[in-house]
């Protein structure tokens, strides 16, 4: 640790290429560590000033990174690997969030006749984006029930609209995440059909932090400083759920009461290539990626363990 003298020293010693960073993050629990680290002054101590920028998803974030509107952004791995396979030059900096049991589930209306995943044959399922984690996780779940993705119809709905789509019968099932699972369960009495993060997708890596290859090449010291500070935040998030519950309402609209009851995944403290390779392989298996993708080439150098 260290005080403000340390932070000034750090800036001088490390010779940071850039001290002000614009970091894109989605207002959901996944990037909690960024805010924890920022609130606790970990970035300051590294000589960095962080400006968190709210983004809606990873797709535009890639463009924002390329035009340097953002320096670093939250992303989900499936999007990143798709983008990379189409030629985007990106680097993964750190892990952020990993699915836990019941963090991504298929929900059906209270009195739906659908009782098991096998009943989904011929039904319509809401996902937030095509060819992304949702379709991947649902397809993996269908496989267990002996179905393929061609046995169902996917429809795109943003998470906030899924409840309406379910109640008005526009879809038969919806692939939801928190806080929507908890809220629709309590408000509308919707029912969990199946946890999509089990079996092939158990403990599935969801979100991480990325930047462009160019930025990583030109700002190694800054990136290392960022990684160190973020890792300290991530340690806290990983160990202490109370800290996460406290920080989430400050950068999302999730109410304190809700934050206390929602199911959370885990906050991995290392960026592990084996785990990530699983994602790429699964994507290849279900045809989201056309060939094999070696994720090791995407990882930015990891910092030495926090001093």
């Amino acid at each position: 640790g260290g005080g403000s003298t340390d932070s000034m020293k750090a800036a001088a010693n490390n010779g940071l290429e850039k001290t002000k960073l614009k970091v894109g993050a989605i207002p959901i629990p996944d990037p909690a560590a960024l805010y924890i680290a920022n609130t606790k002054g970990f970035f300051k101590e590294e000589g960095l000033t962080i400006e968190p920028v709210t983004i809606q998803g990873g797709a535009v974030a890639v463009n924002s990174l390329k035009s340097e509107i953002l320096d670093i952004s939250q992303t989900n791995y499936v999007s990143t690997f798709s983008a990379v396979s189409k030629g985007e030059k990106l680097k993964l900096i750190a892990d952020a969030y990993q699915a836990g049991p019941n963090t991504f589930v298929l929900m059906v209306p209270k009195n739906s006749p659908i009782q098991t995943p096998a009943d989904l044959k011929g039904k319509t399922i809401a996902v937030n984006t095509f060819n992304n984690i949702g379709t991947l996780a649902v397809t993996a779940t269908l496989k267990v029930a002996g179905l393929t993705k061609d046995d169902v119809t996917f429809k795109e709905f943003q998470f906030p609209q899924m409840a309406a789509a379910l109640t008005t019968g526009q879809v038969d099932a919806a692939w939801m995440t928190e806080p929507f699972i908890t809220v629709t369960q309590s408000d509308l009495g919707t029912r969990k059909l199946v946890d999509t993060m089990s079996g092939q997708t158990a403990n599935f890596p969801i979100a991480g932090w990325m930047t462009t290859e160019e930025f990583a090449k030109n700002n190694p010291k800054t990136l290392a400083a960022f990684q160190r500070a973020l890792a300290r935040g991530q340690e806290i998030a990983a160990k202490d759920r109370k800290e996460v519950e406290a920080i989430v309402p400050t950068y999302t609209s999730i109410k304190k009461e809700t934050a206390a009851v929602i199911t959370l995944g885990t906050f991995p403290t290392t960026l592990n290539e084996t785990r990530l390779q699983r994602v790429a392989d699964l994507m290849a298996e279900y045809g989201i990626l056309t060939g094999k993708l070696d994720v090791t080439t995407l990882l930015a150098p990891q910092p030495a363990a926090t001093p």
Partner: protein
Amino acid sequence: MTIGARTLRGAVGVAGFLAAAEAAIRTGLLDARLLPPPSVVLREAALLPADPVFTAGLTGTVSRWLGGLALAIALAVPLGVLLGSLPGVERATRPLLEFLRPIPSVALIPLAILLVPDDFLMKVSVIVYASLWPILINTVYGLREVDPLAKDSLRAFGFGRASVLLRVSLPSTAPFIVTGVRLSAGIALVLAVSAELLAGGAEGLGVFVIRAGSGNRTDLMLAAVLWAGLGGMACNAALVAAERRVFRWHHLRSGVAS
């Protein structure tokens, strides 16, 4: 100027624009990695009609676009006539309308999904909501511009409010209403695509654009957008041609004077 000559001039204009963009990119004025040169986009665009995903999307989007536009006209013209001819009502409802107008349809999509549990109708209602305003406002203001003496001329023959409206105010406002429709046609197309971008769906130009955009295929994205532009152009050309026929007197008069 003959139709042929007019088409030619227009083509020259568009070609010039594209050539300029091409040159800017080829010479490095614009970053080729960021923006594919028009020649590439044009080639992609030429290939698109062969892609069944694209054509299905285009058909869907165009049907929602034109459906929404037709509905917007059917709603906005009568409403505009009502408000334009009853200033009291206009003043009373103005705050409400002016409150509703700037509400982004994007923000209304959740509401629309809830209220209209049908994908087609939901998107159409979002299109109608956004494209209503130019017709409505141009109608209301066009009606105000009608020469009072022209109205008096018919009133003096004992014609009632409704007849005066139908026979004097509307014909004399018609050019402005059509201008409103032209504006609305553009907005309706924008919304037809945007609604797909935001509300998703199974097919559509917007869905195509999202996929191309998220897949680092700016060239494909622009190719699809190009088709949207062409659609808007075609619609506008049709409207202008209709205008020319219906408001012949208007063109004659302006032509004579200039």
